[in-house]
């Protein structure tokens, strides 16, 4: 009999359609973007030869360096804020009773089944000068004039942390779930304070989850453009907004491609760094 544990000798052929699709729409399209970034702007949306590094030279401009710095800073702040608020949440949920845990996780994930734009729009309403937050603060007598919340760095950060939150909580929660809690008990029995136990046992043991969470919140944060678009007003020029502008306002396809290649390279570097410190690729798939 020629069987080999699967349905037939040539089942591997079944993966051909998917592979061909991925080669064309993912592989070739990404390579094409890299190629485009080396050309100069042509008619309309087009590009033209010769091959040049001019687009990459333009990146040295203050405008782009500043935007890159702002985007990286915002992505880092978003990731750290998710850590600050998300770790305690994951920790407390993992210490709850099993039944309560299931329900709390469902409650946590459910909002993210809904459209991201709608949730960001909800924040926009909340942040308006005469919106709910200001009304409540005013009726409590805490403020006299409405606070300017919308179109500030603060509102963008709230939107970003909100959008990225579960991508931090989920990997941390699953590493807390898998953790061997007898280690923490042993540490307590040997006389360590709860705080010391937390920092010497719990945090190191859940480090893979923390790293996966940081990568999962940092990478998408660099490219998100619609949150700063809706909550940040016109002044916030993040990397994603630049790409969008070059494409739709300046119609400069090669330069938009260059900006995307930078984003792609950053993503690659972060994933490499993550693997370098021992992170597993399977942990950072959405």
């Amino acid at each position, binding site marked *: 009999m020629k069987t080999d*544990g699967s349905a037939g000798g040539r089942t591997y052929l079944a993966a051909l359609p998917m592979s061909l699709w991925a080669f064309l729409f993912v592989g070739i399209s990404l390579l094409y973007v890299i190629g485009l970034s080396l050309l100069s702007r042509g008619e309309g949306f087009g590009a033209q030869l010769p091959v040049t590094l001019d687009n990459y030279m333009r990146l040295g401009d203050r405008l782009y360096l500043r935007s890159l710095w702002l985007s990286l800073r915002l992505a880092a702040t978003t990731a750290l804020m998710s850590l600050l608020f998300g770790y305690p949440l994951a920790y407390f949920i993992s210490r709850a009773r099993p039944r309560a845990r299931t329900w709390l996780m469902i409650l946590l994930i459910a909002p993210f089944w809904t459209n991201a734009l709608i949730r960001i729009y909800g924040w926009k309403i909340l942040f308006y000068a005469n919106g709910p937050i200001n009304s409540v603060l005013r009726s409590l007598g805490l403020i006299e004039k409405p606070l300017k919340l919308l179109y500030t760095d603060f509102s963008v950060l709230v939107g970003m942390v909100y959008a990225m939150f579960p991508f931090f909580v989920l990997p941390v929660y699953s590493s807390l779930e898998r953790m061997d809690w007898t280690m923490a008990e042993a540490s307590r029995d040997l006389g360590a304070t709860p705080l010391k136990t937390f920092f010497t046992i719990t945090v190191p043991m859940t480090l893979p989850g923390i790293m996966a969470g940081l990568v999962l919140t940092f990478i998408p944060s660099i490219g998100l453009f619609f949150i700063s678009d809706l909550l940040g007003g016109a002044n916030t020029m993040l990397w994603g907004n630049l790409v969008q502008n070059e494409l739709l306002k300046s119609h400069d396809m090669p330069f938009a491609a260059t900006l995307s290649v930078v984003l792609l390279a950053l993503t690659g570097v972060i994933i490499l760094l993550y693997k370098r410190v021992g992170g597993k690729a399977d942990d950072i798939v959405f």
Partner: protein
Amino acid sequence: MKKNSFWSSLYIAVIILALYLPIMVVVVLSFNGNTGRTAAMNFTGFSFYWYKGLFDPISGFGTQMLTSLEVAFWSVMISACLGTLGAVGMLRQKMRKAASERAVMKMTGIGEQLAMLPIMIPELILGIALMALFSLLKLPFGKMTLIFAHITFCTPYILITVKSRLSTLEPTLQEAARDLGASPAKAFATVTLPLAAPAILSGSLLAFAMSMDDFVISFFVNGAQTTTLPLKVYSSVKVGVTPQVNALCTVMLGAAFLVVAVGQLISALAEKRRADTTKKVQA
């Protein structure tokens, strides 16, 4: 297990409340009886006023809803086929292969890695890459480009769910079918496919939700005449707060919860059936 203290419960409650706050605001204001200029923010009384206009042929959202549904339907259909076949083709094979066969397998291996990329890299990059490719291929931007793009990011969701289901199956089941004389195709259709069906279905629902929800990639590959719901929401919300969008968003929220609830129900039922069968086999 230690019980949560008061403070940790309070912390959980505050965070969960904050997660729901923006959604609740949208839902509550969609039922606003205030039809004046401040309708999007000041709640004055209950009414269905904003829902009535949703399907108005001119100012309503009927066309966009149909476009979204059509794009999601075809994308899920095609990516379900690609992803399921992909997962079957990726099953580990023990038999020794000829060099040419190994070359094909190596290629499909790279193909699988590429197929997974769309959910690892920022969406913006895939959006631009596809936009560039479509204009290189001179494809007219519209429903077709939207569907091609959506297939590209829906496939990994189906691949993941079906692959993890197939890895839990007993390979002996297919072997038994083959030993009893079934052709590989028949063994696939009568053994593998029915067993993988719940995973295909739940993967498809997930992909459907992702397609209905996608904004970033659609933003780059849509045509002037084809607007999906999220694109419409974006353009309405960008200019300011419009009360009718609250009603539209509430409908979309309801639909999203419904799709997920159905998905959960299906996997719960499949789980139960599997548990029952195992019990029967053991008995």
